[in-house]
């Protein structure tokens, strides 16, 4: 198990590094997809089948595709000029802040570490939780997605006056 952990970990780090350092935007997006797929591998190592498969389905199958589509449709496919030092600093500051918050949260939740060695994260259990305890957040998300869908349709609809 250890060796697979290190392989996936290396893939996550290399993919993420490539996503911010490669010159062509498409390469960055593909590199990010590698990183996200390796995160799914970590989920699987932890025994969270559902989360791992959903991660691949959503992030590699949809989000990565969306990214390359957006890159292709919005700008010329040429390498950018690079950012100034000031922007670099801001970016690094924001990244460090986000990392700090996540790390603080992870360190604060020590109880989870000893809770259960083999969590029972079956699809049925997740479904029952979603439909029971967490039904309100799920409904809210559904509403948000519906609104987004309607918005996309409205934006994409042809303008009647032009025709």
């Amino acid at each position, binding site marked *: 198990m250890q060796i697979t952990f290190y392989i996936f970990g290396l893939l996550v780090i290399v993919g993420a590094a490539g996503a911010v350092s490669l010159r*062509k935007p*498409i*390469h960055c997006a*593909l590199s990010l*997809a590698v990183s996200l*797929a390796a995160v799914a591998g970590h989920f699987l190592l932890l025994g969270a*089948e*559902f989360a791992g*498969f*959903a991660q*691949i*389905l959503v992030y*590699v*199958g*949809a989000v*990565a*595709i969306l990214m*390359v*589509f957006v890159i*292709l449709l919005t700008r010329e496919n040429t390498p950018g000029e690079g950012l100034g030092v000031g922007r670099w600093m801001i970016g690094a500051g924001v990244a460090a802040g986000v990392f700090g918050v996540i790390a603080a949260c992870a360190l604060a939740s020590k109880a989870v570490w000893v809770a259960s060695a083999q969590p029972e994260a*079956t*699809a*049925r259990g997740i479904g029952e939780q979603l439909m029971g305890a967490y039904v309100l957040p799920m409904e809210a998300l559904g509403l948000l997605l519906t609104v987004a869908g309607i918005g996309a349709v409205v934006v994409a609809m042809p303008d009647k006056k032009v025709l």
Partner: protein
Amino acid sequence: MINTGLAAIFLWAGLEQGLGKLLDHGLSLLPPAWRTWATIVVLVGVMLGVFASLFALSTLLERKGLGRMQNRLGPNRVGPYGLLQPVADGIKMLTKEDIVPRGADGVVHFLAPLVLFAPLTLSFAVLPYGRHWVPLNLDAGLLFFFAAGSASELAAFMAGWSSRNKYSMLGGMRAIAQMISFEMPLVVASLSVVMISGTMSLAAIVERQEAWLWIFPKWNVFTPWGLAGFGLFIVAAMAETNRSPFDLPEGESEIIGGFMTEYSGFKYAVFFMGEYFGMFAVSGLAVTLFLGGWNAPLSFLPASFLWFFAKLMALVLVFIWVRGTLPRVRVDQLMNLAWKYLFPMTLLNLFVAALWHYTAVWRAPGGLALRWVLCFAAIAVPCAVLARAMMRSHKWAPRVYRFGD
């Protein structure tokens, strides 16, 4: 005649059990530390071998079948009746020059066939072939299948973009748009089966279909929601695997070869094989979800993985038949079909499945027939009405050739 057939089937079932026992015995002779790895090697080897042979067989079947439908002979030069044609094709593909365009993005161009092919072979791992022949029984097997399949969209884009060719790019864009659009009805159509079976494990879904009405099987396809779901699933599957009449990503008369235009030699062969493997995988899933998997079509026949492969090949034959019959659709027709017809109908089918589930308590005589009629009407009438409405919104007129007169 029938007796010999029956005897052959039972003989085969016995052989299959013997083979399984022999395999178990052989593996138990190994030291325990090697057993897992030996099992994995045997499984992977057998699966790749079986599906590669099926691939060779179906290319021949397809060329022969299309030939018959188009009133010609098909391949008949290599071997008796052209049976060795796949071998000749394989040698040709292997020995051809591998051409990479000068402007191509080398790494991505090289990786694209692998990214397409590897996840497709992964999806074979969760299909239940026989009662004791389930390579990997996952709790979320169906989700694994779709997750593995979703990587092929990225591969089509990688191939199209890295070739630095407008036709490749167009083909790649078409492939992504089509796959994303038809993935929705495909997933939602299989959701109805998950709803009724109450599990996402593919082996368990087949076991739920192991019931009989007198001597006839109770497969999911013999219920109203199953019948509708199966039809919707097969149409979506045809589009998802880029089979004709939905072969727009290749569209050889418009964009040469789509995202495969700039591939030659063995890389092209890998794409070609990937397309067939995708067809096998999705047909295997259809057999698992709707056609009862390894179960025999009559109650007194033994279950065997032979039934699985027989049903799979029957579906492949249907795919070939459709390819020889229907012309290619346009892009707008394709999108209309996915979003305005298939997707709403699959959603409605979920409600019909729920109706079927909750009317199961009707015990009155004729209750089954009433349930059938009610549920069938609930899905068939909207299907017909929507189809008619969509046809009517078109203005049909004699074709005018503007550039010909």
